[in-house]
């Protein structure tokens, strides 16, 4: 059963990344760390950048990756891609700030970094503006989304918990949480 909601528009912000056009110069890392410095532009440090070039020139690998969500645990398994005969290292395309690697963490504190698409900067993300070779291209588009309410999702979730732990212990847990 689906309850139809109101139609709404939402802006999708995308950075289109063309790995073939990347020249590996890391200007994106420089300007990203500069625009996010406090005060703005007062310093730069690619190790604080929210975009990273995963880069191995001798294997012709140049993958600009934007920092995504923080994750407390690494994945159960890892991906390794081979594209056009080029083997990419594990996690090459992953955006997570994750315990398995150094990327997307503040160098001093280890706190996670996340791309904010330079919210508030006129003309969109700075990394795109500074990428003269057009490996990074910014795109905004409006999409219509239906606000949906799907009550059955909750029931499916609860059912699997009942199956796993039994109805009584689920009830106990919920009441304990409710009393906290």
């Amino acid at each position, binding site marked *: 059963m689906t309850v139809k909601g109101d139609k709404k528009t939402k802006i999708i912000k995308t950075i289109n990344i063309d790995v073939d056009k990347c*020249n*590996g*110069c*890391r*200007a994106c890392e*420089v*300007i990203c760390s*500069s625009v996010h*410095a406090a*005060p*703005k*532009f*007062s*310093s*730069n*440090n*690619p*190790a*604080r950048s929210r975009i990273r070039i995963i880069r*191995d*020139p*001798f*294997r*012709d690998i*140049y993958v600009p990756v934007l920092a995504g969500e923080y994750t407390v645990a690494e994945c159960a398994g890892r991906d390794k891609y081979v594209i056009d005969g080029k083997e990419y290292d594990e996690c090459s395309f992953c955006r997570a700030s994750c315990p398995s690697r150094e990327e997307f963490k503040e*160098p001093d504190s280890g706190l996670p970094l996340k791309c904010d698409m330079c919210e508030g900067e006129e003309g969109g993300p700075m990394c795109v*503006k*500074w*990428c*003269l*070779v057009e490996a990074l291209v910014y795109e905004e588009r409006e999409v219509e989304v239906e606000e949906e309410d799907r009550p059955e999702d909750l029931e499916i979730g609860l059912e699997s918990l009942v199956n796993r732990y039994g109805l009584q212990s689920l009830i106990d847990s919920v009441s304990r949480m409710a009393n906290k």
Partner: protein
Amino acid sequence: MRYAETGFNLEIDLTRGNIEKVATDPKDTELYLGGLGTNAKLMWDRVGPEVEAFSPENLLIFGAGLLCGTPATGCNRTIVTTISPQTGLLAFSMMGGFWAPELKYAGYDKVVLRGKSPKLIYLLIHNDKVEIRDASHLKGKGSIETAEIIKREINEPKAQVAAIGLAGENRVYYASIEQGRSSASRGGIGAVMGDKGVKAIVVRGTRDINVARPAEFIGLCNEVLEYIKQREGNPIPGVMPILAGLGSPQEMKVHDEKWHTENFMWGNSRTRRKDFWNDEIAKEWTETLESARTRLISCFNCPMKCGATISMPGLPTYMMKCFTKLTYTMGAFSDLDFGLRIAQKATEYGLDGFSTPQVMAFALELLEDGILSDEDFPGMPADNEGRFYYLLDKIVLREGIGDILADGTYWAAKKIGKGADAYAHNNIKKTEQLPLKLSMLNPIYFLMYATGEKMNITQIEGQFPQAPFPEREQREQFVADWIQVPDEKFKQYFLDWEIRGENSMPNYPTVAMTCDIVDWQEMMHYIDDALGQCAGLSSFPLKPPYHIHNYPKFISSGAGIEMDEEKLTKAARRYRTLVRAINNRRGMRRSDEKPPEDHWKKRFPELEERLLNEYYKMKGWNDQGIPTVESLRNLGLDYVSDDFLARGILSSSEDASSSEASAEKEKN
């Protein structure tokens, strides 16, 4: 707080294994900026004229330019300074790439090496952690191979590595320091690194670099990027394609090599092949480059794509830029396939791509003319290409004749004797030059060649067109948006420059104009060399984004040093004079300032004398090319004039004739 620079140098005593982090004096930054400027100050202060290239007292300085590591586009050069084994003078070779910014992010402006390590080591710099590490397992390894092994063993794929190959280990006088896509090649600085027992310097940095006035600085950077976009979209009409845009000459991109192959000399810089280029060769070379070239690549924070990753079938991948594309090909009278193959090997060995092919061609010419004999080349293959590979190995291993050739054509000719001197015909200050032999003396190039101390014309020339444009309308169009000129008079110089007639070479540009032009060209290169800016976005191409009008603003807002055009001009003059003073103290005099005899067919000895006289005068140098007491004092270089007076290099009456004789004595 220090801005743009970190305010610290790393001082490494290799003999004792001592490492120190030393704070630098901000006053020196104001006077000498950074990079070459402050390197030169250290060399003057600490390396006396008695110190030879391979003395433990010789310093080997890796200096990051003042603005390296800031967001200034294309500012990524490492200036390596030492005493050259080839010339006995100051070598200040440079490399782009990624090393200098990484050093800044690690928290240092320079790495200063002194002494000699008893065994082969590499230096590992990771922020505050600095270690001298054993490199015995890297002995004999290629330069790129070394970098890849180290990055794996320390598990730091983001580390930047400057390494030598076997040529540096064996102290070949034209050994380079390689950094993947870039190299510091001139003056044999790789040999000094090898002599000091240092295989590589590995850097990883994760610290901030600050700028003084953030909004203003980024505004300037944005203007430069906008200008680059506009300039790249509008190549300059009327000049050859490699000079129409920005960047280093776009050798990795451009396929049409008619100009180089028909105007530059082949072999030992003697043979011009006027009808060499044809459709068949064009097709073949295009295929060779296109199938070898995986990608056009850049240095740190730069949109220009002057380099390329090259993968020749059956050979390891390497990276190349600029004119090494053709030097081996033309030295050996071969084709591009050979040139790109042997360059792979030479890059791993760590050799200068300008000198090496010429030394090999020189050896084969001596063989052909009976000055050397077959016995000097035991086991040499009969085929042309095979002979070059044979010689490359012999030189790098310093085996047999290779041991003599490893010192370069100047010293090899002296050792070989029997008139071999005449075959080492393409040198300035004992250093092999690009193989150019032209007909009519160009007064601008005469002065640049004669007085340049960087030993490489591409690092001296630029800004001013290399030749007049045929039509006045074209010239008018050219000067219309020529904002880079330091003074409007340069526009008039160019407007009136004709291919033929009264206002043509060699008498036009006049002596005075020529001095102005060369002084401007040289100043821009010296500013770049202190800031760490690549010449490809500044002093080399026509109408570059960086120039004398915006540089002071970059320095003020970036480094927080109040700067204007006058102060910057004076600072550049100060350390340029200091470079000269170091060389004068080591014996360099007017007699050393000579382009090769055969560089131009039509020479004008009287005019040449006049050019040199007037240029020296303008620079504040005496007739021996030594800065006068007065000019030294004007620049605040009293310590230099005091030293020159004490040594008798200058006398208080500034009569330098006696100093020439003493210099000759010193040299012999």
